[in-house]
């Protein structure tokens, strides 16, 4: 046995002002984050994080609670704008455009960078209307037939169509938690985003529903870039190609998932992965 508090004290001093270990760059980046700093009021939440996110890859972000991984994720589609006290500094490029720029149109950004949330949050509308919501807003379908096609395709891609095809008029809140989460994924992919952000998408689900979502993530990778925040390390190991480890607002280590989970270079990453804290 070891003394957790001692360990935490030690790791705190290690974490401060440390450079990110591992290769943060990829050959074919979709998103490039440069020197991202986030503050809630005066309190820093993310410290100078830089990372590339590649095309058609699944990047997993792991780390103990409060380490800033969700905050970083929410920077990628400017969801942090909804929090009054939150301030983001740095540069974030998506298709050569700095999305942190004040001039960026947040609405079209969020259509390009979709998000799936921790708790399934279907609207209190029918299953069909849940999926049709985004396409309708963005005027993606000229008529009902096109809209039907988008809705059915999205449900199909989310692996939900077979289960709900007979009750598309049922309220989105009437299906099971796992189905609801896949409905939310269908809703997100209905507006054909380029990037999908997932904030602990399975934390409210049972193991079977979780397995389904993980399979889905694996399939979605072909068409989308996916960034997933997760607390379950096995999940990160199963679904992702690259893993980023956050600790107390610092991006500590980035690397191929296989490497992070077998031979982590940073001491903090190793302690987290071996379960010394979390």
């Amino acid at each position, binding site marked *: 046995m070891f003394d957790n508090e001692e360990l935490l004290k030690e790791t705190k001093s290690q974490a401060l002002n440390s450079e990110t270990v591992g290769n943060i760059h990829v050959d074919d980046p979709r998103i490039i984050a440069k020197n991202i700093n986030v503050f809630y009021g005066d309190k820093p939440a993310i410290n100078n994080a830089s990372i590339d996110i590649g095309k058609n890859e699944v990047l997993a972000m792991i780390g103990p609670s409060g380490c800033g991984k969700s905050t970083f994720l929410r920077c990628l*589609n400017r*969801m942090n704008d*909804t929090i*009054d006290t939150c301030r983001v500094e740095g540069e974030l490029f998506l298709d050569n455009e700095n999305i942190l720029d004040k001039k960026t149109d947040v*609405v*079209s*950004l*969020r*259509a*390009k960078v*979709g*998000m*799936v*949330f*921790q*708790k399934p*949050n*279907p*609207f*209190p*509308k029918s299953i069909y209307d849940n999926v049709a*919501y*985004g396409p309708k*807003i*963005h005027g993606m379908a000229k008529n009902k037939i096109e809209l039907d096609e988008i809705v059915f395709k999205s449900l199909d891609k989310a692996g939900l169509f077979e289960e709900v095809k007979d009750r598309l008029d049922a309220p989105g*809140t009437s299906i099971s938690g796992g189905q609801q989460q896949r409905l*939310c994924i269908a*809703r*997100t992919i*209905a*507006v054909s985003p380029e990037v999908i952000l997932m904030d602990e998408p399975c934390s409210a689900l049972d193991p079977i529903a979780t397995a389904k979502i993980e399979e889905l993530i694996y399939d979605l990778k072909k068409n989308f870039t996916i960034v997933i925040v997760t607390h379950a390390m096995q999940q990160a190991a199963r679904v992702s190609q690259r893993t980023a480890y956050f600790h107390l607002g610092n991006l500590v280590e980035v690397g191929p998932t296989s490497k992070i989970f077998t031979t982590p270079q940073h001491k903090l990453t190793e302690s987290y992965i071996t379960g010394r804290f979390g």
Partner: protein
Amino acid sequence: MNMTVILITLVLLAASSYYVGLKKSVSIQKSEKLHSAPIYHGSLIAIYSLIVSLLFISMWRLFENYLYPEFSLSKNLIFFLSLLVFLITALIVFLKIEKNFRAREKVENIIEIFLLICSTVAILITIGILLSVIFEATRFFSMVPITDFLFGTHWSPQIPIREDQVGSSGAFGAIPLFTGTFLIAFIAMIIAGPIGLMSAIYMSEYATKKTRDIIKPLTEILAGIPTVVYGFFAVIVVAPFIRSSGEYFGLNIASESALAAGLVMGIMIIPFVSSISDDVINAVPQNLKDGSLGVGATKSETIVKVIIPAALPGIIGGLLLAISRAIGETMIVVMAAGMSANLTANPLEAVTTVTVQILVLLVGDQEFDSPKTLAAFALGLVLFFMTLILNYVALNIVRKYREQYE
């Protein structure tokens, strides 16, 4: 010896009996383990004796006042008898105190019964009010046919004393009153509904915390202004304003109009609509809003397509509560809309409402055998049922809303 002295004495006795019970159980506790804590033994003696002696007094009063007046005793005797009852009860409970005596359970039971009584008081009083109104209203309906009352279109409640008296036909058609009531409530809701809802949307979705902290309390001040003050406002500011702007367009508007009363009433009920709507809009979970924003919806799209539909039942509930408030309002109407019972849908004319007529009928000298006075109760009964139904519907909608996200 008057009742106050008796009561004070009993309460003092209860306090000392509490102490006695406490003492005895504490002394038992020194050697043995008690079932209940000492304070329960003390409380039980005090509460039991007090209840029994008070019951005794009230039973006795009932007995001598209504049943056998000839047995009337002097007040002093009652006083001593009640003290005796108190002491006997206290002694009985005192003797029962021992280590296995379950005082705690008994005290808890008494508390439960007491709470039950408190919670039924409101219901019983409502039933009482209803019965008294129904009783007088049936007397009215025995003089005036109920169909004449509910479907008559002419309201002129003066009963003629002489054959040839002018303006006293004794007609009790309530339709003009109800149309007047609904006209004014309708105007009020046209004002309060949109303004209240919009301000709720602004406060819950757009305003910064600072702005909200300023605007919300200020809006709620509107609800605290006495209605008679709104009446002044209607008479002195709004009615002349409507009149002069009507003249500008060549309209001849009476200085008392449904519009003036409705406008001011609308202002009065804005806070009902806005603060209930604000609450239900805030109750829409943040993750629903995030979900909508997350697929690229704008703030206003999110509000119109997700937040309002989700909050709609609650908002409707708030609107219905505001309507029942508008229907019951009297003072503004008396001052601004007049008292003449016109059957009209024109908001520029003077109208009157149910509550105003109740007031008019009951002010001054009354005889409780004339239909004029009793008509007030019939009006009250109908009004009671209308607001009851509205409140019932409103509460049900609000309850349904609660189930939606849980």
